Structures are given as structure tokens and as C-alpha cells.
């Protein structure tokens, strides 16, 4: 079964089509890169797929559930990590895990064993009882990702998860993404880093609300007869009429 199916999905604010009739499928277990310049409509599209926003037209299902009527069911089956850090700064690491685990209905016993595992894989045993506010950004982001997949969702949405993070931590972060994908979680990720785009199984590039290209990184490079993703992105995005915000 496909993880995400979009057909002609559109979101309009007044005259402005933020998302203009996009169609694509995402396979279960795939790492799907969702690229586009600032203001191209990535975040809007993602918010629709996460059940945070109603589309104006078109169809889409996420984990088999309809984005118009079954948003709460979608929410049960996805994880979401926004570009803003979204854990509670003034809760400790463990309290954050416990809180979000509880919200997703993970049982207490599971929360306890899984959070112990998680803390040790992240190597944060010493920090487990400290407030999240004191952690360095890279660790915060890794923690946020771990929390987003803590309830073992079918799909995880990552909105620019590595913004402002150093290259080493980014590599570690992508290792975590691969692990999650290997465990069968579909990863839907937006990014501005083209090296990260290369890590994806397939990528789509949005320009002015439309999906202008969708394929594996290798074939996209071939198609635009270049050897760098930067160039692919540049060729697509420079045709954009919308000014970046």
C-alpha cells in the first residue's frame, strides 16, 4: 500500500494558489525528499498532509486515510517535526518523551522501556533529567526526531529538520533517518541542503506551488544533464515567478 497519494491537491488563499494541483505518490518505507525554494508551497502542502490544514481542492490520502474527513486518524499514524523546535523547553528530556508518548497513547510500560533505549542510543544518559532548554541545537533536533517517531508511526514528516545544524550532526541525523526507514517508516522530508537531497530515494521539486520534477536523484541529474543536484535545483527554481520570502 502506498503511504501517501495526492491527486490534484490544491490550497488557495484568496487569489493565491499556495499549492497548485500537485499529484504524487509515496511508497511505504521510502525516503521522499520534498524540495522547493522558500515560498514554493512545501510547508503548506505538508500541513495539509499532516491534517493541520484543509485543502481547497483535489484528493489525498495519508496512510490510507482521507485528508478531508479522517484527519484525526491520520494524526495517529504520523509523526511530525516542524522547522521550529517543538519540544517543551522547560520540561526535562524524559518528561518530554513521556508527555508526547502519552499524547499518542503509548502505554506507560512501553514509554519507560523505549525512552531508556532512546536515551542510551542518543548517548544522552547524563542529560536525561535535565531541561531540554540547555541542550545544543543539534541534540535538540535529534531528540525531536526521536520523539516524532517514538510512537512508531507509519509516516514521519520532517520540515527542514537540519536547519542550522552542523555537518557532522547532520550526518548523524541522516543515519537516524535511514534507521527509521529501514524499520519501515516512510520519511517525508523537506530540505534546502542538496547533499541531503542526494540521500533520498526519490525527490520532488516544487516551483510556484506545482511539482515540476519528481524522480530519483540520479535520474534527475541525468535529465538535466548535470552531475550536481545544486544545478538541477537551480535550473528548476530560477523559472519561479514568486519572489522568495
Amino acid at each position: 500500500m502506498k503511504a501517501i497519494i495526492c491527486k490534484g491537491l490544491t490550497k488557495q488563499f484568496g487569489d493565491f494558489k499556495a499549492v497548485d494541483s500537485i499529484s504524487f505518490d509515496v511508497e511505504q518505507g521510502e525516503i521522499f525528499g520534498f524540495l522547493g525554494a522558500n515560498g514554493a508551497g512545501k510547508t503548506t502542502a505538508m500541513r495539509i498532509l499532516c491534517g493541520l490544514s484543509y485543502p481547497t481542492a483535489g484528493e489525498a490520502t495519508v496512510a490510507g486515510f482521507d485528508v478531508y474527513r479522517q484527519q484525526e486518524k491520520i494524526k495517529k499514524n504520523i509523526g511530525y517535526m516542524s522547522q521550529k523546535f517543538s519540544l517543551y523547553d522547560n520540561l526535562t528530556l524524559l518528561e518530554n518523551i513521556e508527555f508526547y508518548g502519552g499524547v499518542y497513547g503509548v502505554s506507560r510500560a512501553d514509554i519507560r522501556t523505549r525512552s531508556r533505549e532512546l536515551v542510551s542510543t542518543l548517548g544522552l544518559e547524563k542529560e536525561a533529567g535535565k531541561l531540554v532548554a540547555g541542550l545544543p541545537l543539534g541534540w535538540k533536533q535529534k531528540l525531536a526526531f526521536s520523539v516524532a517517531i517514538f510512537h512508531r508511526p507509519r509516516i514521519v514528516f520532517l520540515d527542514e529538520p537540519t536547519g542550522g545544524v552542523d555537518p557532522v550532526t547532520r550526518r548523524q541525523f541522516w543515519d537516524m533517518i535511514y534507521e527509521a526507514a529501514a524499520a519501515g517508516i516512510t520519511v517525508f522530508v523537506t530540505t534546502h541542503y542538496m547533499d541531503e537531497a542526494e540521500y533520498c530515494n526519490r525527490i520532488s521539486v516544487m516551483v510556484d506551488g506545482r511539482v515540476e520534477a519528481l524522480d530519483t536523484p540520479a535520474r534527475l541529474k541525468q535529465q538535466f544533464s548535470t552531475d550536481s543536484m545544486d544545478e538541477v535545483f537551480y535550473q528548476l527554481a530560477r523559472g519561479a515567478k514568486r519572489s522568495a520570502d
Partner: protein
Amino acid sequence: MQKEFRQIFRDKTILAMMLVAPTMQLIILPFAANFEVKNVNVAYVDHDHSSYSRKLLHKIGASGYFRMVGDPRSYKEGLEMIEYGKADLVLEIPAGFEKNLVREGSQKVNLSVDAINGTKASLGGAYLVSVLANFNSNLDVNVKLPDGKAVAPAAKITVAGINWYNPRAEYKYYMVPGILVLLLTMIGGFITALNIVREKEIGTIEQINVTPIQKWQFILGKLIPFWIVGMIVFTIGLTVMYLVYGIFPKGNLAVLYLFAAVYLVALLGLGLLISTFAETQLQAMFIAFFFMMVFMLMSGFFTSIDSMPDWARAMSGFTPVTHFIKVVRLIVLKGSGLADLKTELGYLALFAVALNGLAIFNYRKTT
């Protein structure tokens, strides 16, 4: 959902603010916010210079409410002192004051009042009249306001003024429960609104919205901790009231708590409702302030509801604070029981249901 509880205790500063600030306010505010008038500046014009007139002046000075600020030579100079704000009252004792009192058994004195500071002037005037009356009930006091419009009828004073004499205790009893209510109102209205809007600002609310949490779960999760804090504050308030002012509710404590509980739910609902409209904490503050101002002024806390125009009285009925202040005063001071306050309980419950209903209705996880 018990996890939401922690959200409140994580914020140690806010928690401290919520618990300590009200206590301080309850201790300090009543001294400033009472209607009692002290330090009324009295200028006197003594045309008599008799031992009896001096005795009267001495008595006025000794009452503790007045400050003798000077003895201008003429009544005109006394009025000038009022104009310059040096005096609030001018008392004129005519020549032959002692003689006439002894011989004819009655004597007029003139009292002019500065009506700019209305409360001070009218209460100060009334005090002075009662001092005079107490001094010699045969005195006829001629009270004049400077603009000449509101010349009070020359009061043939009897001893009726005596109740004014120790108004202090009265005001304290009246004000302290009112202030307690206002504190509870602030906690309920402000803190919930700010808390949720803060989550909007930080972005955690979006993270919450993307979870399968139900609206009512989220709202209850917010309500319950603040409700508990509110009740704790209320308890602290009552304790302070008892320890510092020696006021112990005459009525049933359980009834008082029942009302506080319902009232808090209503106010929390208001806070939630505000938070669904406001996008930033600044907006939330302004909206909350607007409501608080209306509530405070309309609730009969500062002014008597009975003396409001009809429309204001009607509006006053729509503010939950009005009902709660009334109830608290009735229970604490008068000892009213549940049966007497059934309608008020109904009103408060109505507010609670309506405000929370609106808040839940208005809170959207999906836009």
C-alpha cells in the same frame, strides 16, 4: 492527560508569581484601596477666639482624620487655600460663637468643601460634621460647596453621624473579600490565556495539533492544573484574610469553595476563549485587560451597582465577577447559605458552561 499537569509546575517562576503575588497584594492592597478618608486638610477661620472655639478645634485635630493646615485671617483667604489645593475644607467659626451657644443654645458654623476630590470632600465633610455634632449637638452646620450649586441643607445635626466614626473596620471587611475575588479573576483570566498563546508563539501548539489528542482532552489538560492552582490561591487568600485581617467567613466554607470552584471554571473558560482569538501574548494581554477593566469597574467592587444607570446595571449582570463578589461578600460577611444564593450559583454555572463551550467550539486543530 495527567502529563499536562507538569506543564504548570515546570514553570517555577510563573508558579511563584501565581502564589506569592496574590498573597502580597492581598496584604498590601486593602490599605490603599479603601475608601476611608484620612489626612483631610482643614483650614479654620476662628472669628471668636474663645476657649470654647479652641476646644472645638483641638477636638477636630485630635480625631485623627484631620490635619489642621492653617488659620487664615478671613474666610476669603481660606477659600484661596482651597484653590491652591492646600486645604480640603474651610471651617468658619463666627464671632460670638461661644456666647451664642451659651445664651441661645444654638449657633451656626460655616463649612466649605472642595468638591474636586469628591470622595475625600464628601466623606471629610461628613466626618467633620459628625465631629461637630458630637462636640455640641446644638451646632448648626452650614455646608457649602465652592461652586454654590450643591449647597447641602443646613444640617441640624443630631448624633446620627456616629457610625462614620470608625469606618475603618467596615471598609476592610468590605474590601478584602473583593480583592480576593479580583486576584482569582486575574489568575483565571490571564494566566490560562497567556499560557496557551505562549504555546502558539513557541510553536508547540502546532506539534500538539498534529497529534491525535482530542480537543476536550487538550482543554481539560489546560484547565485542571490552573483550576487547582486557582483553588490553592483562593485558600491562601482566605488564610491571609484570616491571619492578617481576622476575617473568618461567617457562612459555610464548603459553600464558599463551591462558588469559587464554579467561578474559576468560568474564568478559565474566558481565558481559553481569549487564547483562541489571540495570536500573540501581547494581543492576549490587551484583550484580557479590556475584560478585566470592564469587570472591575462594573462589578460593584469600586462603586455601588445600585447607583449605576440602568444600562450599566444590566451590563454588570453579564459580568461573572459581579456575581462572585456579591456571593463572597454575602458568605463572608453576612453568612448566607446555599439556599440564599441559588440564583447566583446558576448564573455562575451558566457563565462556566457558556464560556468553555465557546472556547472548545472556537479552538480548531485544523484550519
